[in-house]
């Protein structure tokens, strides 16, 4: 009994109410989606408007509903810890999503994605850091905005801020700015994509290149469609693999190159790369490998009753709970922290990435970005 006790954090009970709240909210959101889809299929005009014109699927219901609840109702404090831990449930969802791919997809879409993300990530990070340096923006703010707008938003800021020693005020501005523009992109890009008839795979690539924050990126792609999600997740995996390299670049650009490293703060570069490496990606590739090996006993995502089919059903639930957590965590008060120089940098970088990303995916076309799956 004691051994079982040690499997749980001593204060894990505080997460239960909020997590259950997200679970119930996700259940309601998914059933509302089914209800609207059912009426839409039956030819009901209002449902067709909601389903087709307003694109109100479970992602939109959970995100918009979550934002409305969070910002208009007084959320009891007891729910907040559980709401926060609901967001990372997307991570196991992404690992499980590995069953959607075979190595041919990873090689084809992944290599295009790798090339695009390398250009976009390092392009954004280098240009932002260089301009910040030129315009006299502090190293701390330049470093976190370069990484934040280049790689994966707030996650990149968290990884980079101790390295470039950003101060708390700069961090608050940067996080507020990334959240603001990430949220704006989440709610505008699916409509822009639809209005210009962007294919799902093109939209997936576009969102993976342009949307600043990773949680919003996954949500926008799932909102647009399964194919968009498949492409976005694969390119996003390539994108977050670059996180340790961007942190390393920021270390070189701001600290090593200028000889400003303090002797008592010597940074071990190998430890830095190891600590910043998103280890869960290995789980994702393990599932891709297992799916590619065509193991009979595991089946596939489309073979009803097989283990991979069951896992495929679970990923939607992971995403739904995660999106409920994201929606309920989007606080307008947090976004109001956006400001100062960070706002200008964030706005410019997001607009440039959005436009350039769209041009690139339109030029590449759908075929090269499409995940065929097993």
């Amino acid at each position, binding site marked *: 009994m004691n051994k079982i006790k040690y499997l749980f954090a001593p204060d894990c009970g505080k997460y239960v109410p909020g997590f259950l709240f997200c679970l119930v909210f996700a259940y309601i959101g998914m059933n509302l989606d089914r209800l609207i889809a059912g009426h839409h299929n039956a030819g009901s005009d209002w449902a067709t408007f909601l389903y087709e014109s307003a694109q109100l699927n479970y992602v939109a219901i959970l995100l918009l509903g979550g934002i409305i609840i969070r910002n208009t109702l007084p959320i009891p404090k007891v729910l907040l810890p559980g709401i926060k831990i609901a967001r990372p449930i997307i991570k196991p969802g992404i690992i499980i999503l590995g069953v959607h791919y075979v190595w041919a997809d990873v090689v084809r879409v992944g290599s295009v994605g790798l090339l695009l993300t390398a250009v976009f990530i390092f392009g954004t990070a280098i240009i932002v850091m260089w301009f910040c340096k030129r315009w006299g923006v502090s190293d701390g703010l330049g470093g976190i905005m370069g990484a934040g707008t280049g790689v994966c938003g707030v996650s990149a800021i968290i990884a980079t*801020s101790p390295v470039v020693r950003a101060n708390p005020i700069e961090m608050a501005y940067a996080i507020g700015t990334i959240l603001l523009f990430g949220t704006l992109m989440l709610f505008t890009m699916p409509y822009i994509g639809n209005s210009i008839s962007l294919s799902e795979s093109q939209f997936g690539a576009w969102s993976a290149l342009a949307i600043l924050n990773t949680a919003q990126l996954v949500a926008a792609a799932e909102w647009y469609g399964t194919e968009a999600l498949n492409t976005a997740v694969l390119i996003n995996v390539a994108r977050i693999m670059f996180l340790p390299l961007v942190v390393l670049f920021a270390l070189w650009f701001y600290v090593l190159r200028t000889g400003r490293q303090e002797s008592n703060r010597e940074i071990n570069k190998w430890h830095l790369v190891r600590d910043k490496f998103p280890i869960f990606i290995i789980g994702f590739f393990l599932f891709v490998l297992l799916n590619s090996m065509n193991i009979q006993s595991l089946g596939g995502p489309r073979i009803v009753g097989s283990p991979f089919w069951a896992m495929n059903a679970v990923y939607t639930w992971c995403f739904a709970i995660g999106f409920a957590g994201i929606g309920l965590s989007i606080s307008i008060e947090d976004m109001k922290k956006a400001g100062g120089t960070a706002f200008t940098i964030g706005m410019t970088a997001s607009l440039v990435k959005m436009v350039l990303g769209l041009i690139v995916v339109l030029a590449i076309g759908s075929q090269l970005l499409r995940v065929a799956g097993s």
Partner: protein
Amino acid sequence: MKILVCADGESHSTIAIKKAVSMGLSLTAEVTALHVIDPWLKTFHDEIYAQGRRQYLEYVEECLEVNAEEAKRAFYLECIAEGFNANFKVRRGEPLVEILDEVSETVPDLLITGGKRLTLWGRFGSGNLPLQLQKKIGQALPIIVVKGI
């Protein structure tokens, strides 16, 4: 008479502290500076793809402690320069809530706070703490907002 002054270490709060100290001297009032350590940044350590979370939390904590120490040092330097005795307090939490709690616990006669000159976006933004304080406290306590640059 008791004066409570908010000290967040920014330039506008330095001007507010000067004002509080000079009022404390002229009115022979008891002045207390309050610095609030806001743990808001820490709430982001569990971002989905966040790596190096422990290092981030330690770094933020270190920065917040250093800021508090610097605010305390600047306050006491101002007091020493003016030959004035005053108190410095640190609280931890959401600044608006903590300032209101301090007001209700110590019941000062005057609250002095610094305030930035705000742009349109800034006025919309939550950085407008003095305005929020005025709204919450209302007529119950006189507030002086010293505008910075």
